[in-house]
């Protein structure tokens, strides 16, 4: 594989970035005096900063490298992760869920579960979430270290070490505020570092229409209809007729509803950013402000993948590295950087990737910090200590969280497409979770036992479904089928993940209802005030100018997403 050679100017740009990231942590260290400062930024973050941090924490290396890989592999259908997946869920979070998260004064998502249901539901969620964040952060670390090793010849261990140390330093110094401020910086770096890549790539392919023409040829060469790489809905009548291997129901229900709502509405990694906002109105606007750039990201992360695969086809297989006769899709973004950026811009592009990696990792580490300290340590290990003690614990957990991520980075070396692995974990842990929150927030009769056994049932269902099915062309093991018999074969990993999520959600939903009806309520209406929709006074936004009203913004965002879906139908 061709190595990219870095010049002094590239290292200079990378160092400037490191200096500023650490400098921000250093400048913020004096504001960290209490646990609330460290874990929740003292609830002082303005809406636009929280919004950009919200989206940046999600814009990790998995997103940038994984989405361009999926773009190259599956085509424009990858946009479903944005225009069907993310946007509706973000709007729902802003309008219907933030009032309860922010209004309940819960310090974390698991803590909300404790207030709404009971201790065991919180414990189950806290522990599974803690494991997941460490795992995600480890994958992020692995992806970048691997990528720098292949592309630049950097030592794998060196990359893991340097990135770990920098993220550790700035979170240790400034806590969540430092992570959030750096996420805003990283957001601008990622956008400004990758945008010229798309412009240069499009120019090289010969413009938009030429790209579409090339992609049709790619689709045909894979044995699909010409439009399958360039149309997002037209070929979703059956799973076999598109490269993603999913039919419309799997997309709408599996991805759009279960997986996306599970992630955006209940994942503390993103919700924490909104909880740090300086007012209820700011907290509700946070996901909506985030939704605007999110809607445009396909142009930044999927389009490079499309350009890469069409160039791969045009050059007769000379663009992407080929392994076992298949192009290595994960190399789509790196190969684009190597091809289109000269020294100078290359430094900027690599800094953007470094930033995306760090923002993803820092997001996970800060979420892990809080959940460990408040929901596990304070609740089960050492309750009743001083705030100072928990602040100290937060600092220690940052160190431990980074060390665990390093361990995971060395373990995560098996999948062809990083995103598939991540979706798999989300499906096990997050998919049933949204059923619990939905019933918790909108049905006051849901009980603690119902929620706990529903979650447990959903997660076990996810594991069993995964163990009994296998995507075509894969080996039994981490891809599924490990329960001995294979009941069903899916056309792709993605299809299997969507359906795992659908089964998990449905079982959790049904079990929670049945057990709730069979058990007595453990919370009175008075206790559930501020936690359940029907028992909470509605927020009136009459005095707020229209462009700051969550409902108005939500409608605009959803309408724009509908238009985008129609354009790329």
């Amino acid at each position, binding site marked *: 594989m061709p190595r990219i050679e870095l010049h002094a*100017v590239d290292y200079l740009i990378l160092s400037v970035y490191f200096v500023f990231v650490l400098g921000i942590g250093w400048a913020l260290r004096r504001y960290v005096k209490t646990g609330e400062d460290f874990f929740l930024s003292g609830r002082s973050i303005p809406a636009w900063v929280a919004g950009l941090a919200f989206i940046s924490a999600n814009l990790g290396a998995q997103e940038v490298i994984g989405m361009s890989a999926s773009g190259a592999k599956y085509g424009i259908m990858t946009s479903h992760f944005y225009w069907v997946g993310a946007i509706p869920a973000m709007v729902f979070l802003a309008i219907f869920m933030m009032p309860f998260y922010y209004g309940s004064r819960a310090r974390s998502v698991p803590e909300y579960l404790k207030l709404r249901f009971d201790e065991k539901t919180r414990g189950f969620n806290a522990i599974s979430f803690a494991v997941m964040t460490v795992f995600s952060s480890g994958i992020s670390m692995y992806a970048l270290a691997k990528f720098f090793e292949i592309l630049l010849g950097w030592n794998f261990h060196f990359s893991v070490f340097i990135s770990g140390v920098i993220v550790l330093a700035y979170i240790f110094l400034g806590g969540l505020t430092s992570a959030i401020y750096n996420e805003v*910086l990283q957001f601008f770096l990622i956008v400004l570092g990758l945008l010229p890549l798309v412009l240069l790539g499009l120019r090289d392919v010969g413009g938009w229409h030429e790209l579409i023409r090339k992609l049709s040829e790619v689709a045909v060469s894979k044995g699909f209809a010409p439009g399958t790489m360039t149309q997002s809905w037209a070929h979703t009548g059956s799973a076999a007729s598109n490269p993603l291997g999913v039919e419309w129901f799997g997309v709408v229900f599996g991805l759009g509803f279960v997986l996306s709502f599970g992630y955006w509405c209940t994942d503390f990694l993103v919700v924490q950013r909104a909880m740090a906002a300086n007012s209820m109105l700011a907290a509700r606007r946070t996901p909506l402000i985030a939704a605007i750039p999110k809607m445009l990201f396909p142009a930044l992360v999927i389009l490079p993948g499309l350009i890469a695969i069409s160039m791969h086809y045009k050059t007769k297989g000379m663009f992407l590295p080929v392994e076992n006769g298949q192009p290595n899709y994960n190399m789509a973004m790196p190969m684009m950087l190597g091809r289109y950026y000269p020294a100078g811009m290359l430094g900027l592009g690599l800094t953007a990737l470094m930033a995306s990696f760090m923002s993803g990792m820092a997001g996970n580490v800060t979420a892990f910090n809080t959940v460990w300290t408040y929901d596990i340590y304070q609740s089960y290990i050492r309750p009743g200590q001083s705030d100072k003690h928990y602040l100290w614990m937060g600092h220690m957990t940052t160190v431990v969280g980074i060390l665990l991520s390093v361990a995971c980075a060395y373990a995560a070396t098996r999948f062809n497409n990083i995103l598939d692995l991540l979706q798999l974990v989300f499906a096990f842990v997050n998919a049933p979770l949204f059923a619990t929150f939905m019933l918790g927030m909108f049905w006051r009769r849901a009980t603690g036992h119902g929620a706990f056994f529903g979650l447990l049932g959903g997660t076990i269902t996810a594991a069993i479904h995964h163990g009994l099915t296998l995507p075509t062309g894969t080996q039994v093991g981490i891809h599924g089928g490990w329960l001995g018999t294979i009941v069903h074969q899916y056309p792709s990993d993605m299809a299997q993940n969507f359906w795992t999520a659908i089964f998990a959600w449905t079982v959790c939903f049904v079990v929670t209802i049945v057990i709730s009806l069979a058990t007595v309520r453990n919370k009175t209406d008075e206790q559930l005030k501020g936690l359940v929709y029907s028992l909470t006074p509605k927020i009136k936004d009459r005095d707020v100018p229209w462009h700051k009203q969550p409902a108005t913004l939500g409608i605009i965002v959803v309408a724009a997403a509908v238009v985008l879906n129609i354009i790329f139908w």
Partner: protein
Amino acid sequence: MKLDIRMPMGVMFVIVGLILVVYGAMTGSDVETYRRLLGMNINLVWGLVLFLIGAAMLVLARRAMKSPSK
């Protein structure tokens, strides 16, 4: 806000923009480097864009600091 994030961001983009502009101007005659980019000196062009964005952030941060709204 404890610290206006536009301040450090603005300074960083101004610095990175300047680095790219200077580097682009220095290497502009190097036809080989920019040939595959269809003759476009992307360092010079994008360096300028970054510089302007950074400067705009600084202006906004300064204006917010001066305004008596707090």
